[in-house]
């Protein structure tokens, strides 16, 4: 069905005309667009967004590169199955608002995805250019962002059509990417959807986790406003399992529950001195700065603004934290990572941006212990030098300590970013679901349904720690399956 729809769309006259308007040889000769960025020296002192977005001319030029393939493999790389050629070809013909509508057919958060998705590992990795031509892929992510931003700035924000309401109440636990994607699809199908959020602001990790220089809060607000206009209801300051129970939801007539409560439990390394003052989790650091706006002098929430800041870890969150520290005035902002740069899980773009902003990389170093002053404030850390051995289960080369080779590093703030565990609140307070020893909820991978047939789950509470777009993909999959499940019971 998906394929028929794609072919029908592709067969439209305007698409055919566009394909004929330029020779493929000329299309493939165009070099990939470069995203304009704020100068590193300037941006490492502000919270403004680093990427500036493409101009109309740049976007149209980039869209010429897309060959509008018969078999658009790029779509298979997208967890929310955006009709990529359709939106790109709309950009090519100058119908930017139509391009945005095409995004919204399947994505609840296009302006977010255009900014934070690891496209190089998803759609762009499955692009014809990457697979067959061995050239740089179409800049799908940049174009997605362009279309979403164009619509937002145009003042003509479209609200996707929704089916007439069917009156069936659905509860969503958590307003992060999984929950929002699920809510968007369910409201389109006519369900009466309420999203419950524990914090005082909506967006989950999009709000508390990802810094504004990568994803401005305004963008998150506008995407959520779109969902509100479609009819999704939101309740902040409400913890399902605590403020209201599973039973309360049933009694209030909710026929389905989707759990997208996220991976809200930071891991520590459990090494000596880790509870010294000035050492904190990346979640704490980023929450203070992003959610609580602690860098704003008028905010009551404090945050350390260290001069010598070490961030432990090599993921996107570690990059977010170290670049935030730089912006808060760190003279030395350092990544400490036990493997080499090649094994870093962070996106290539994030590592590049960090480097440009003067972030120092202590790769192949692993913290052993911390020491503090008489008031308990961290002063220095002992690092073990590492080398790479044979590949481990993850396929990455295993880091091995070089015996006796250690160094002391002076620090006044340390941010521990070595992963997160699933938030235990839901598994502890819900019955009827199966939970792994890691604390993740067990689901049927095709439907995201849990052992309790009215409860579905997705995102990090199932995966244990993944990306915004994979969480959104789970939300979409769960919406489709819950809809079928509820209809089959009628």
């Amino acid at each position: 069905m998906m394929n028929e729809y794609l072919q029908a769309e592709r067969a439209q006259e305007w698409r055919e005309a566009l394909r004929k308007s330029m020779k493929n040889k000329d299309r493939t000769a165009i070099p990939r667009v470069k995203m304009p960025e704020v100068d590193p020296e300037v941006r490492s002192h502000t919270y403004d967004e680093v990427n500036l977005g493409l101009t109309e001319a740049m976007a149209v030029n980039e869209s010429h590169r897309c060959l509008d393939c018969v078999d658009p493999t790029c779509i298979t790389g997208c967890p929310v199955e955006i009709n990529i050629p359709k939106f790109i070809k709309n950009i090519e013909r100058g119908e930017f608002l139509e391009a945005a509508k095409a995004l919204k057919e399947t994505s609840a958060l296009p302006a977010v995805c255009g900014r934070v998705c690891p496209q190089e590992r998803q759609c762009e990795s499955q692009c014809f250019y990457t697979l067959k031509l061995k050239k740089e892929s179409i800049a799908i992510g940049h174009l997605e962002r362009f279309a979403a931003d164009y619509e937002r700035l145009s003042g003509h924000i479209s609200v996707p059509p929704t089916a007439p309401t069917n009156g069936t109440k659905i509860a969503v636990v958590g307003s992060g990417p999984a929950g929002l994607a699920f809510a968007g699809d369910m409201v389109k199908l006519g369900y009466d959807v309420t999203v419950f959020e524990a914090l005082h602001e909506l967006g989950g990790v999009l709000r508390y986790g990802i810094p504004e220089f990568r994803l401005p809060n305004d963008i998150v607000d506008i995407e959520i406003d779109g969902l509100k206009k479609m009819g999704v209801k939101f309740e902040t300051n409400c913890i399902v399992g605590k403020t209201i129970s599973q039973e309360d939801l049933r009694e209030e007539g909710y026929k389905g529950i989707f759990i997208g409560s996220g991976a809200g439990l930071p891991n520590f390394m459990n090494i000596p001195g880790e509870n010294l003052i000035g050492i904190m989790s990346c979640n704490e650091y980023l929450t203070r700065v992003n959610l609580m706006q602690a860098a704003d002098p008028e905010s009551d929430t404090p945050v350390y603004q260290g001069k010598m800041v070490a961030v432990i870890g090599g993921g996107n969150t570690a990059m977010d934290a170290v670049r935030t520290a730089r912006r808060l005035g760190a003279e030395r902002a350092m990544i400490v990572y036990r493997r080499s740069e090649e094994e870093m899980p962070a996106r290539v773009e994030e590592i590049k941006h960090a480097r440009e902003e003067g972030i120092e990389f202590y790769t192949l170093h692993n913290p052993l212990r911390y020491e503090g002053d008489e008031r308990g404030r961290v002063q220095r850390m002992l690092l073990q030098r590492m080398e790479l051995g044979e590949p481990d289960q993850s396929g990455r080369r295993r880091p091995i300590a070089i015996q006796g080779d250690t160094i002391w590093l002076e620090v006044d703030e340390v941010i521990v970013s070595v992963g997160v565990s699933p938030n235990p609140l839901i598994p502890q307070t819900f019955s009827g679901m199966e939970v792994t020893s890691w604390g993740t909820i067990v689901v049927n991978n095709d439907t995201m349904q849990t052992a309790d047939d009215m409860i579905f789950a997705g995102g990090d509470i199932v995966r244990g720690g993944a990306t915004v777009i994979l969480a959104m993909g789970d939300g979409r999959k769960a919406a489709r399956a819950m809809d079928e499940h509820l209809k089959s019971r009628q």
Partner: protein
Amino acid sequence: MNRIVGKETFSDKVVKFEVEAPLIAKSRRAGHFVIVRVGRKGERVPYTIAAADPEKGTITLVIQRVGKSSEKMCQLEVGDYITDMVGPLGKATHIEHFGTVICAGGGVGVAPMLPIIEAMKNAGNRVISVLAARTKELIILEEQVSRNSDEVIIMTDDGSYGEKGLITTGVEKVIQREKVDLCVTIGPAIMMKFVSQLTKKYDVPTVASLNTIMVDGTGMCGACRVTVGGKTRFVCIDGPEFDAHQVDFDEMLMRLKAYN
């Protein structure tokens, strides 16, 4: 937004609020806390729930002016709204028939102790409450505590009310006099540390309710972490109550000064 429906000033420093929060009033149990934020630029601060009226849909918080955020809260009046309030958070107090239970509350810590005293009494325990404060006017809720206690001992640092001396003097007197099966203590960290040291000496199992720095209160940030029995635990989701004899109070005292 939660409306304030009652305000009572206990002393210059201590204010009692009754706040509309029907869902929390219904689901909370002794030992639970809430996170409160006052104003759009406000900080998220945990306060232990002192009482709840599920029919009226209100909860009671007793707040001491100790810093910017508690000061902001104490300036609110009846009819004002609290910007954000979420809960109930933490694990509820473990209540059962232990036998004889000492409830040792210091200063404003008597407020969150009150529901525990009531629950312990209802579970059939002999409850001996020891209330302590620096001076007479800082002794709060004496009447409510008396109603649910078999005995109330009052200690003041300056001897202006009850007996002169620290809370430990009152607790020790009871332990020396009769068999005590459990001690529950809530108050300033330094006070709980000394109560814990004392009861450890006499081998009396002791539970302390810790009030550390928090941001989200749901396990997300780890600002509240403490060392209990050599392991790092989160006060917000693993606590707030822990086996006091296992708590590293010195580390906790140090961490409480993180932003001072």
